[in-house]
Protein backbone atom coordinates (compact mmCIF):
# COMPACT_ATOMS: atom_id res chain seq x y z
CA UNK A 1 0.00 0.00 0.00
CA UNK A 2 1.08 3.57 -0.50
CA UNK A 3 -0.45 6.74 0.91
CA UNK A 4 0.63 10.09 2.28
CA UNK A 5 -0.95 12.63 4.60
CA UNK A 6 0.12 16.09 5.70
CA UNK A 7 -1.60 17.88 8.58
CA UNK A 8 -4.74 15.89 7.88
CA UNK A 9 -7.04 13.75 9.97
CA UNK A 10 -7.19 10.29 8.42
CA UNK A 11 -9.78 7.77 9.53
CA UNK A 12 -8.42 4.22 9.08
CA UNK A 13 -11.35 1.81 8.77
CA UNK A 14 -11.79 -1.86 8.01
CA UNK A 15 -13.18 -5.07 9.53
CA UNK A 16 -11.51 -7.01 12.35
CA UNK A 17 -8.22 -8.48 11.18
CA UNK A 18 -7.97 -6.00 8.28
CA UNK A 19 -4.52 -4.90 9.49
CA UNK A 20 -5.27 -1.56 11.13
CA UNK A 21 -3.23 -2.13 14.30
CA UNK A 22 -0.58 -3.95 12.24
CA UNK A 23 -0.28 -0.84 10.03
CA UNK A 24 0.29 1.30 13.12
CA UNK A 25 2.91 -1.05 14.57
CA UNK A 26 4.71 -1.03 11.20
CA UNK A 27 4.63 2.79 11.10
CA UNK A 28 6.09 2.81 14.63
CA UNK A 29 8.85 0.46 13.47
CA UNK A 30 7.76 -2.25 15.91
CA UNK A 31 6.99 -4.80 13.17
CA UNK A 32 9.30 -5.87 10.35
CA UNK A 33 7.95 -4.68 7.00
CA UNK A 34 9.00 -4.19 3.42
CA UNK A 35 8.86 -0.80 1.73
CA UNK A 36 9.47 2.56 3.33
CA UNK A 37 7.68 4.58 5.99
CA UNK A 38 8.69 8.24 6.34
CA UNK A 39 7.47 10.62 9.03
CA UNK A 40 8.51 14.25 9.09
CA UNK A 41 11.28 13.52 6.60
CA UNK A 42 12.73 10.64 8.68
CA UNK A 43 12.48 7.22 7.03
CA UNK A 44 14.69 5.02 9.25
CA UNK A 45 14.19 3.68 12.76
CA UNK A 46 14.57 7.21 14.13
CA UNK A 47 11.16 8.15 12.68
CA UNK A 48 9.55 6.80 15.88
CA UNK A 49 10.81 9.96 17.57
CA UNK A 50 8.29 11.92 15.46
CA UNK A 51 5.30 9.75 16.36
CA UNK A 52 2.87 9.81 19.25
CA UNK A 53 0.87 6.60 19.75
CA UNK A 54 -2.39 5.95 21.58
CA UNK A 55 -2.89 2.17 22.00
CA UNK A 56 -6.19 0.32 21.89
CA UNK A 57 -5.80 -1.21 25.35
CA UNK A 58 -4.54 0.82 28.29
CA UNK A 59 -3.31 -1.34 31.16
CA UNK A 60 -4.15 -0.14 34.63
CA UNK A 61 -2.95 -3.12 36.68
CA UNK A 62 0.52 -1.68 37.25
CA UNK A 63 0.84 1.15 39.77
CA UNK A 64 1.35 4.49 38.02
CA UNK A 65 -0.16 7.93 38.36
CA UNK A 66 -1.56 9.93 35.47
CA UNK A 67 1.49 12.23 35.73
CA UNK A 68 3.97 9.32 35.56
CA UNK A 69 2.06 7.80 32.64
CA UNK A 70 2.39 11.02 30.63
CA UNK A 71 5.70 12.44 31.85
CA UNK A 72 8.00 9.40 31.95
CA UNK A 73 7.95 8.57 28.18
CA UNK A 74 8.76 12.23 27.39
CA UNK A 75 11.66 11.95 29.83
CA UNK A 76 12.81 8.63 28.30
CA UNK A 77 12.78 10.20 24.84
CA UNK A 78 14.77 13.17 26.19
CA UNK A 79 12.16 15.74 25.10
CA UNK A 80 13.44 19.22 25.90
CA UNK A 81 11.70 20.36 29.07
CA UNK A 82 9.74 17.12 29.37
CA UNK A 83 8.07 18.33 32.56
CA UNK A 84 6.58 21.39 30.87
CA UNK A 85 5.54 19.31 27.82
CA UNK A 86 3.72 16.84 30.10
CA UNK A 87 2.01 19.67 32.02
CA UNK A 88 0.78 21.32 28.82
CA UNK A 89 -0.40 18.02 27.36
CA UNK A 90 -2.38 17.26 30.53
CA UNK A 91 -3.93 20.73 30.45
CA UNK A 92 -4.89 20.26 26.79
CA UNK A 93 -6.83 17.07 27.58
CA UNK A 94 -8.22 18.62 30.79
CA UNK A 95 -6.64 16.06 33.13
CA UNK A 96 -4.11 18.26 34.93
CA UNK A 97 -6.24 18.34 38.08
CA UNK A 98 -6.19 14.52 38.16
CA UNK A 99 -2.43 14.15 37.62
CA UNK A 100 -1.80 12.53 41.02
CA UNK A 101 -4.60 9.97 40.62
CA UNK A 102 -3.69 6.36 39.84
CA UNK A 103 -4.51 5.27 36.28
CA UNK A 104 -6.85 2.65 37.69
CA UNK A 105 -9.08 5.40 39.12
CA UNK A 106 -9.83 6.92 35.68
CA UNK A 107 -12.92 6.29 33.58
CA UNK A 108 -12.62 4.85 30.05
CA UNK A 109 -12.84 8.31 28.46
CA UNK A 110 -10.33 9.80 30.92
CA UNK A 111 -7.92 6.93 30.21
CA UNK A 112 -8.11 7.66 26.49
CA UNK A 113 -7.45 11.34 27.17
CA UNK A 114 -4.46 10.41 29.34
CA UNK A 115 -3.10 8.28 26.49
CA UNK A 116 -3.62 11.20 24.09
CA UNK A 117 -1.81 13.53 26.52
CA UNK A 118 1.09 11.06 26.66
CA UNK A 119 1.33 11.10 22.87
CA UNK A 120 1.03 14.92 22.73
CA UNK A 121 3.82 15.34 25.29
CA UNK A 122 6.20 13.70 22.81
CA UNK A 123 5.57 16.61 20.44
CA UNK A 124 5.52 14.42 17.31
CA UNK A 125 4.45 15.30 13.76
CA UNK A 126 2.20 12.27 13.57
CA UNK A 127 -0.36 10.99 16.06
CA UNK A 128 -1.60 7.39 15.80
CA UNK A 129 -4.87 6.71 17.61
CA UNK A 130 -5.89 3.05 17.78
CA UNK A 131 -9.65 2.91 18.30
CA UNK A 132 -9.80 5.65 20.94
CA UNK A 133 -13.61 5.69 20.87
CA UNK A 134 -13.96 2.03 21.85
CA UNK A 135 -15.04 1.54 25.49
CA UNK A 136 -16.00 5.20 25.87
CA UNK A 137 -19.53 6.26 26.92
CA UNK A 138 -21.50 8.85 24.89
CA UNK A 139 -20.38 11.72 27.13
CA UNK A 140 -16.73 10.65 26.82
CA UNK A 141 -17.18 10.30 23.06
CA UNK A 142 -18.39 13.91 22.71
CA UNK A 143 -15.44 15.14 24.82
CA UNK A 144 -12.94 13.06 22.85
CA UNK A 145 -14.27 14.20 19.46
CA UNK A 146 -14.03 17.80 20.61
CA UNK A 147 -10.44 17.18 21.72
CA UNK A 148 -9.56 15.48 18.42
CA UNK A 149 -10.87 18.48 16.46
CA UNK A 150 -8.49 20.67 18.45
CA UNK A 151 -5.52 18.33 18.03
CA UNK A 152 -5.86 17.88 14.28
CA UNK A 153 -5.08 21.53 13.61
CA UNK A 154 -1.41 21.11 14.45
CA UNK A 155 -0.40 17.62 13.27
CA UNK A 156 -1.26 14.66 11.09
CA UNK A 157 -3.58 12.23 12.86
CA UNK A 158 -4.32 8.63 11.85
CA UNK A 159 -7.20 7.10 13.79
CA UNK A 160 -8.42 3.54 13.43
CA UNK A 161 -12.07 2.90 14.08
CA UNK A 162 -14.84 0.39 13.60
CA UNK A 163 -17.35 3.18 13.69
CA UNK A 164 -18.23 4.85 10.47
CA UNK A 165 -20.76 7.11 12.14
CA UNK A 166 -18.71 10.29 12.34
CA UNK A 167 -19.26 14.04 12.26
CA UNK A 168 -18.45 15.23 8.73
CA UNK A 169 -16.03 17.92 9.93
CA UNK A 170 -13.67 15.46 11.66
CA UNK A 171 -11.97 13.35 8.99
CA UNK A 172 -10.18 14.96 6.07
CA UNK A 173 -9.59 11.55 4.51
CA UNK A 174 -10.72 7.96 4.97
CA UNK A 175 -8.44 4.98 4.39
CA UNK A 176 -10.20 1.63 3.92
CA UNK A 177 -8.15 -1.45 4.68
CA UNK A 178 -8.95 -5.10 4.21
CA UNK A 179 -5.55 -6.84 4.27
CA UNK A 180 -4.58 -4.26 1.62
CA UNK A 181 -5.49 -0.70 0.79
CA UNK A 182 -9.03 -0.65 -0.64
CA UNK A 183 -9.58 3.09 -0.96
CA UNK A 184 -8.05 6.35 0.24
CA UNK A 185 -9.41 9.84 -0.19
CA UNK A 186 -11.84 12.48 1.11
CA UNK A 187 -14.97 11.04 2.81
CA UNK A 188 -17.32 12.15 0.03
CA UNK A 189 -15.27 10.18 -2.49
CA UNK A 190 -14.59 7.09 -0.39
CA UNK A 191 -17.78 6.57 1.62
CA UNK A 192 -19.69 5.09 -1.28
CA UNK A 193 -21.64 1.86 -1.66
CA UNK A 194 -19.21 0.54 -4.24
CA UNK A 195 -16.22 0.90 -1.88
CA UNK A 196 -18.09 -0.29 1.21
CA UNK A 197 -19.21 -3.47 -0.51
CA UNK A 198 -15.51 -4.41 -0.93
CA UNK A 199 -14.93 -4.06 2.82
CA UNK A 200 -18.15 -4.97 4.63
CA UNK A 201 -20.99 -7.28 3.60
CA UNK A 202 -24.04 -5.83 5.36
CA UNK A 203 -23.13 -2.21 5.95
CA UNK A 204 -24.50 0.84 4.21
CA UNK A 205 -23.63 4.47 4.85
CA UNK A 206 -25.88 7.51 4.77
CA UNK A 207 -24.91 11.18 4.77
CA UNK A 208 -26.96 13.42 7.05
CA UNK A 209 -26.72 17.20 7.63
CA UNK A 210 -24.38 16.59 10.64
CA UNK A 211 -22.23 13.76 9.34
CA UNK A 212 -22.04 10.18 8.11
CA UNK A 213 -24.27 7.55 9.68
CA UNK A 214 -23.54 3.86 9.45
CA UNK A 215 -26.55 1.67 8.64
CA UNK A 216 -26.54 -2.07 9.25
CA UNK A 217 -28.90 -4.17 7.18
CA UNK A 218 -31.31 -6.61 8.79
CA UNK A 219 -29.31 -9.77 9.60
CA UNK A 220 -32.41 -11.88 9.01
CA UNK A 221 -32.04 -11.40 5.28
CA UNK A 222 -28.47 -12.74 5.31
CA UNK A 223 -28.29 -16.24 6.84
Amino acid at each position, binding site marked *: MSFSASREFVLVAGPNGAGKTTLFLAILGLLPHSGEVCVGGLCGGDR*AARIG*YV*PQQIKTEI*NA*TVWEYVY*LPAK*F*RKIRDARKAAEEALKTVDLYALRDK*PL*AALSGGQLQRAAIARALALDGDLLLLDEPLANVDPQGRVELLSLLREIKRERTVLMTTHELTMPSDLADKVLFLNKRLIAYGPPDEVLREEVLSRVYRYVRIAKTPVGYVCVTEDYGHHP
Partner: protein
Amino acid sequence: MSASPRTTVTILEAAAGASLAAAFLHAHLYTPLLFWPLASLAMSAAVVAALSPLAVSRRMTFLAHSQGHTVLTAALAAAVPTAIFAGSLASPLFYLFTFVFMILLNLLVPVAEMLGLRRDVATGVVMSLQYVIILALLYVIRHFYAAVDPLLLITGEYVLITWRDVSTQIPLLLLAALFPAAYGIKYLYASVDENFARAVGVRVSTLDRLFIVSMSLAAAASVYAAGSLMPAILLVLPGAIAARYSHRLTEQIPLSVSVAAISTAVSHFLYTALPWLWPSAALGLVLLAFLLAAPRRRE
Protein backbone atom coordinates in the same frame (compact mmCIF):
# COMPACT_ATOMS: atom_id res chain seq x y z
CA MET B 1 -7.70 10.53 59.34
CA SER B 2 -5.43 8.37 57.21
CA ALA B 3 -1.95 9.46 56.10
CA SER B 4 -1.48 10.46 52.46
CA PRO B 5 0.60 8.05 50.30
CA ARG B 6 3.60 10.44 50.24
CA THR B 7 3.53 10.72 54.04
CA THR B 8 3.36 6.93 54.30
CA VAL B 9 6.38 6.57 52.03
CA THR B 10 8.37 9.09 54.07
CA ILE B 11 7.40 7.33 57.31
CA LEU B 12 8.41 3.92 55.92
CA GLU B 13 11.75 5.22 54.64
CA ALA B 14 12.51 6.85 57.99
CA ALA B 15 11.43 3.70 59.83
CA ALA B 16 13.74 1.62 57.61
CA GLY B 17 16.76 3.74 58.52
CA ALA B 18 15.89 3.87 62.22
CA SER B 19 15.09 0.18 62.62
CA LEU B 20 18.24 -0.93 60.81
CA ALA B 21 20.35 1.42 62.92
CA ALA B 22 18.73 -0.01 66.06
CA ALA B 23 19.33 -3.59 64.90
CA PHE B 24 23.01 -2.94 64.11
CA LEU B 25 23.52 -1.17 67.44
CA HIS B 26 21.86 -4.07 69.25
CA ALA B 27 24.01 -6.58 67.37
CA HIS B 28 27.18 -4.59 68.08
CA LEU B 29 26.46 -4.23 71.81
CA TYR B 30 24.69 -7.47 72.74
CA THR B 31 25.12 -10.10 70.00
CA PRO B 32 28.45 -9.31 68.26
CA LEU B 33 28.49 -12.72 66.56
CA LEU B 34 25.38 -11.67 64.66
CA PHE B 35 26.77 -8.35 63.43
CA TRP B 36 28.21 -9.58 60.12
CA PRO B 37 25.36 -12.04 59.51
CA LEU B 38 22.97 -9.10 59.97
CA ALA B 39 25.05 -6.96 57.59
CA SER B 40 25.00 -9.76 55.02
CA LEU B 41 21.25 -10.31 55.34
CA ALA B 42 20.44 -6.58 55.25
CA MET B 43 22.49 -6.03 52.09
CA SER B 44 21.06 -9.10 50.38
CA ALA B 45 17.51 -8.16 51.35
CA ALA B 46 17.91 -4.57 50.13
CA VAL B 47 19.31 -5.54 46.72
CA VAL B 48 16.90 -8.41 46.06
CA ALA B 49 14.01 -6.20 47.23
CA ALA B 50 15.10 -3.48 44.78
CA LEU B 51 14.47 -6.04 42.04
CA SER B 52 11.17 -7.15 43.57
CA PRO B 53 8.82 -4.55 42.01
CA LEU B 54 10.32 -5.45 38.63
CA ALA B 55 9.83 -9.15 39.33
CA VAL B 56 6.19 -8.80 40.37
CA SER B 57 5.33 -6.56 37.42
CA ARG B 58 3.32 -8.36 34.80
CA ARG B 59 6.36 -8.82 32.58
CA MET B 60 8.17 -11.14 34.98
CA THR B 61 5.58 -12.45 37.45
CA PHE B 62 5.84 -16.08 36.35
CA LEU B 63 9.62 -15.94 36.40
CA ALA B 64 9.62 -14.42 39.92
CA HIS B 65 7.39 -17.21 41.20
CA SER B 66 9.69 -19.85 39.79
CA GLN B 67 12.81 -18.44 41.47
CA GLY B 68 12.35 -20.53 44.63
CA HIS B 69 12.92 -23.64 42.55
CA THR B 70 15.62 -22.06 40.44
CA VAL B 71 17.74 -20.82 43.35
CA LEU B 72 17.52 -24.13 45.21
CA THR B 73 18.38 -26.13 42.09
CA ALA B 74 21.26 -23.78 41.24
CA ALA B 75 22.64 -23.86 44.80
CA LEU B 76 22.51 -27.67 44.94
CA ALA B 77 24.11 -27.90 41.49
CA ALA B 78 26.80 -25.39 42.51
CA ALA B 79 27.57 -27.36 45.69
CA VAL B 80 28.91 -30.31 43.67
CA PRO B 81 31.69 -28.53 41.67
CA THR B 82 32.44 -26.32 44.69
CA ALA B 83 32.93 -29.41 46.87
CA ILE B 84 35.21 -30.90 44.19
CA PHE B 85 37.37 -27.80 43.58
CA ALA B 86 37.27 -25.83 46.84
CA GLY B 87 35.98 -28.10 49.57
CA SER B 88 33.97 -25.43 51.41
CA LEU B 89 30.82 -23.62 50.36
CA ALA B 90 32.30 -20.42 51.84
CA SER B 91 34.48 -20.24 48.72
CA PRO B 92 33.77 -17.52 46.12
CA LEU B 93 33.52 -20.42 43.65
CA PHE B 94 30.17 -21.32 45.20
CA TYR B 95 28.80 -17.85 44.35
CA LEU B 96 30.16 -18.15 40.82
CA PHE B 97 28.71 -21.61 40.16
CA THR B 98 25.35 -20.64 41.69
CA PHE B 99 25.20 -17.58 39.43
CA VAL B 100 26.08 -19.58 36.31
CA PHE B 101 23.52 -22.29 37.06
CA MET B 102 20.83 -19.69 37.84
CA ILE B 103 21.40 -18.00 34.49
CA LEU B 104 21.24 -21.35 32.69
CA LEU B 105 18.06 -22.41 34.50
CA ASN B 106 16.35 -19.04 33.89
CA LEU B 107 17.27 -19.17 30.21
CA LEU B 108 15.53 -22.55 29.99
CA VAL B 109 12.19 -20.68 30.22
CA PRO B 110 12.63 -18.68 26.96
CA VAL B 111 14.06 -21.85 25.37
CA ALA B 112 10.88 -23.72 26.35
CA GLU B 113 8.86 -20.78 24.96
CA MET B 114 10.65 -21.22 21.64
CA LEU B 115 9.18 -24.73 21.56
CA GLY B 116 5.78 -23.06 21.29
CA LEU B 117 4.75 -23.11 24.96
CA ARG B 118 3.06 -20.10 26.57
CA ARG B 119 5.28 -18.30 29.13
CA ASP B 120 3.34 -19.60 32.15
CA VAL B 121 3.34 -23.16 30.79
CA ALA B 122 7.05 -22.91 29.87
CA THR B 123 7.81 -21.75 33.43
CA GLY B 124 5.80 -24.67 34.84
CA VAL B 125 7.61 -27.15 32.61
CA VAL B 126 11.02 -25.81 33.68
CA MET B 127 9.94 -25.91 37.34
CA SER B 128 8.94 -29.57 36.95
CA LEU B 129 12.32 -30.30 35.40
CA GLN B 130 13.98 -28.57 38.34
CA TYR B 131 12.15 -30.82 40.83
CA VAL B 132 13.68 -33.81 39.07
CA ILE B 133 17.14 -32.20 39.14
CA ILE B 134 16.74 -31.32 42.86
CA LEU B 135 15.93 -34.93 43.74
CA ALA B 136 18.88 -36.23 41.72
CA LEU B 137 21.27 -33.66 43.23
CA LEU B 138 20.14 -34.41 46.80
CA TYR B 139 20.98 -38.05 46.17
CA VAL B 140 24.39 -37.20 44.61
CA ILE B 141 25.35 -34.82 47.45
CA ARG B 142 24.31 -37.21 50.22
CA HIS B 143 26.05 -40.14 48.53
CA PHE B 144 29.32 -38.55 47.40
CA TYR B 145 29.81 -35.31 49.35
CA ALA B 146 28.71 -36.04 52.92
CA ALA B 147 30.52 -32.90 54.20
CA VAL B 148 27.95 -30.71 52.43
CA ASP B 149 24.69 -30.38 54.36
CA PRO B 150 21.85 -29.79 51.87
CA LEU B 151 19.69 -28.38 54.68
CA LEU B 152 22.12 -25.46 55.06
CA LEU B 153 21.68 -24.70 51.36
CA ILE B 154 17.99 -24.21 52.10
CA THR B 155 18.25 -22.30 55.39
CA GLY B 156 21.58 -20.50 54.89
CA GLU B 157 24.77 -20.49 57.00
CA TYR B 158 23.62 -17.33 58.78
CA VAL B 159 25.48 -17.55 62.11
CA LEU B 160 28.77 -18.53 60.45
CA ILE B 161 28.91 -15.41 58.25
CA THR B 162 32.09 -13.37 58.71
CA TRP B 163 33.52 -10.16 57.32
CA ARG B 164 35.19 -12.22 54.56
CA ASP B 165 31.82 -13.51 53.36
CA VAL B 166 30.40 -10.00 53.43
CA SER B 167 33.35 -8.67 51.42
CA THR B 168 32.76 -11.38 48.80
CA GLN B 169 29.10 -10.44 48.63
CA ILE B 170 29.55 -6.68 48.32
CA PRO B 171 30.83 -6.49 44.69
CA LEU B 172 28.26 -9.03 43.51
CA LEU B 173 25.39 -7.16 45.19
CA LEU B 174 26.62 -3.80 43.91
CA LEU B 175 26.66 -5.18 40.38
CA ALA B 176 23.15 -6.57 40.85
CA ALA B 177 21.96 -3.19 42.19
CA LEU B 178 23.10 -1.38 39.04
CA PHE B 179 20.12 -2.64 37.02
CA PRO B 180 17.29 -1.38 39.26
CA ALA B 181 19.21 1.85 39.88
CA ALA B 182 19.82 2.59 36.20
CA TYR B 183 16.87 0.97 34.43
CA GLY B 184 14.30 0.19 37.12
CA ILE B 185 11.84 2.94 36.16
CA LYS B 186 12.12 2.22 32.43
CA TYR B 187 11.59 -1.49 33.06
CA LEU B 188 8.54 -0.83 35.24
CA TYR B 189 7.12 1.44 32.54
CA ALA B 190 7.54 -1.39 30.03
CA SER B 191 5.03 -3.30 32.18
CA VAL B 192 2.54 -0.45 31.84
CA ASP B 193 2.84 -0.32 28.04
CA GLU B 194 5.47 -2.40 26.30
CA ASN B 195 4.79 -1.15 22.77
CA PHE B 196 4.87 2.47 23.84
CA ALA B 197 8.07 1.92 25.83
CA ARG B 198 9.65 0.34 22.74
CA ALA B 199 8.40 3.21 20.57
CA VAL B 200 10.13 5.78 22.80
CA GLY B 201 13.40 3.88 22.60
CA VAL B 202 13.33 1.54 25.62
CA ARG B 203 15.05 -1.70 24.59
CA VAL B 204 12.66 -4.01 26.39
CA SER B 205 14.18 -7.34 25.26
CA THR B 206 17.66 -6.23 26.31
CA LEU B 207 16.27 -5.10 29.67
CA ASP B 208 14.58 -8.50 30.08
CA ARG B 209 17.97 -10.20 29.72
CA LEU B 210 19.71 -7.72 32.02
CA PHE B 211 16.97 -8.25 34.59
CA ILE B 212 17.55 -12.03 34.53
CA VAL B 213 21.31 -11.52 34.95
CA SER B 214 20.82 -9.00 37.76
CA MET B 215 18.27 -11.17 39.56
CA SER B 216 20.51 -14.23 39.24
CA LEU B 217 23.49 -12.28 40.55
CA ALA B 218 21.54 -10.96 43.56
CA ALA B 219 20.15 -14.39 44.39
CA ALA B 220 23.54 -16.09 43.99
CA ALA B 221 25.14 -13.51 46.28
CA SER B 222 22.45 -14.10 48.92
CA VAL B 223 22.24 -17.90 48.98
CA TYR B 224 25.15 -18.61 51.34
CA ALA B 225 23.81 -16.24 54.01
CA ALA B 226 20.05 -16.37 53.54
CA GLY B 227 19.54 -19.82 52.05
CA SER B 228 18.10 -20.74 48.71
CA LEU B 229 14.44 -20.03 49.40
CA MET B 230 14.76 -16.56 50.95
CA PRO B 231 15.85 -14.78 47.72
CA ALA B 232 12.67 -16.03 46.07
CA ILE B 233 10.56 -14.69 48.94
CA LEU B 234 12.42 -11.38 48.83
CA LEU B 235 11.82 -11.20 45.08
CA VAL B 236 8.06 -11.34 45.54
CA LEU B 237 6.87 -10.02 48.92
CA PRO B 238 8.56 -6.57 49.23
CA GLY B 239 7.34 -5.58 45.76
CA ALA B 240 3.84 -6.85 46.51
CA ILE B 241 3.81 -4.91 49.81
CA ALA B 242 5.15 -1.72 48.17
CA ALA B 243 2.33 -1.86 45.61
CA ARG B 244 -0.16 -1.71 48.50
CA TYR B 245 1.39 1.37 50.06
CA SER B 246 1.72 3.55 46.97
CA HIS B 247 0.20 3.84 43.51
CA ARG B 248 3.23 5.75 42.22
CA LEU B 249 5.47 3.83 39.83
CA THR B 250 8.52 5.84 40.86
CA GLU B 251 8.05 4.99 44.55
CA GLN B 252 7.87 1.22 44.15
CA ILE B 253 11.61 0.48 44.32
CA PRO B 254 12.47 2.74 47.32
CA LEU B 255 9.39 1.47 49.15
CA SER B 256 10.26 -2.15 48.47
CA VAL B 257 13.80 -1.62 49.79
CA SER B 258 12.42 0.12 52.90
CA VAL B 259 10.04 -2.77 53.56
CA ALA B 260 12.91 -5.26 53.26
CA ALA B 261 15.11 -3.16 55.57
CA ILE B 262 12.42 -2.88 58.26
CA SER B 263 11.67 -6.60 57.99
CA THR B 264 15.37 -7.50 58.28
CA ALA B 265 15.72 -5.36 61.43
CA VAL B 266 12.57 -6.80 63.03
CA SER B 267 13.62 -10.35 62.12
CA HIS B 268 16.98 -9.73 63.85
CA PHE B 269 15.19 -8.93 67.12
CA LEU B 270 12.81 -11.84 66.59
CA TYR B 271 15.71 -14.24 66.03
CA THR B 272 17.63 -13.06 69.08
CA ALA B 273 14.47 -13.47 71.20
CA LEU B 274 13.62 -16.85 69.67
CA PRO B 275 16.96 -18.45 68.70
CA TRP B 276 15.26 -21.69 67.60
CA LEU B 277 13.71 -19.73 64.72
CA TRP B 278 15.97 -19.62 61.64
CA PRO B 279 16.80 -16.00 60.66
CA SER B 280 15.53 -16.58 57.13
CA ALA B 281 12.29 -18.03 58.52
CA ALA B 282 11.97 -15.03 60.87
CA LEU B 283 12.41 -12.66 57.88
CA GLY B 284 9.78 -14.54 55.89
CA LEU B 285 7.31 -14.37 58.81
CA VAL B 286 7.87 -10.63 59.28
CA LEU B 287 7.34 -10.01 55.55
CA LEU B 288 4.12 -12.03 55.63
CA ALA B 289 2.89 -10.02 58.63
CA PHE B 290 3.82 -6.82 56.77
CA LEU B 291 1.81 -7.95 53.76
CA LEU B 292 -1.24 -8.78 55.86
CA ALA B 293 -1.01 -5.44 57.69
CA ALA B 294 -0.54 -3.40 54.50
CA PRO B 295 -3.51 -1.32 53.34
CA ARG B 296 -5.44 -2.34 50.25
CA ARG B 297 -4.35 -0.54 47.09
CA ARG B 298 -5.62 3.04 47.04
CA GLU B 299 -7.58 4.12 43.99
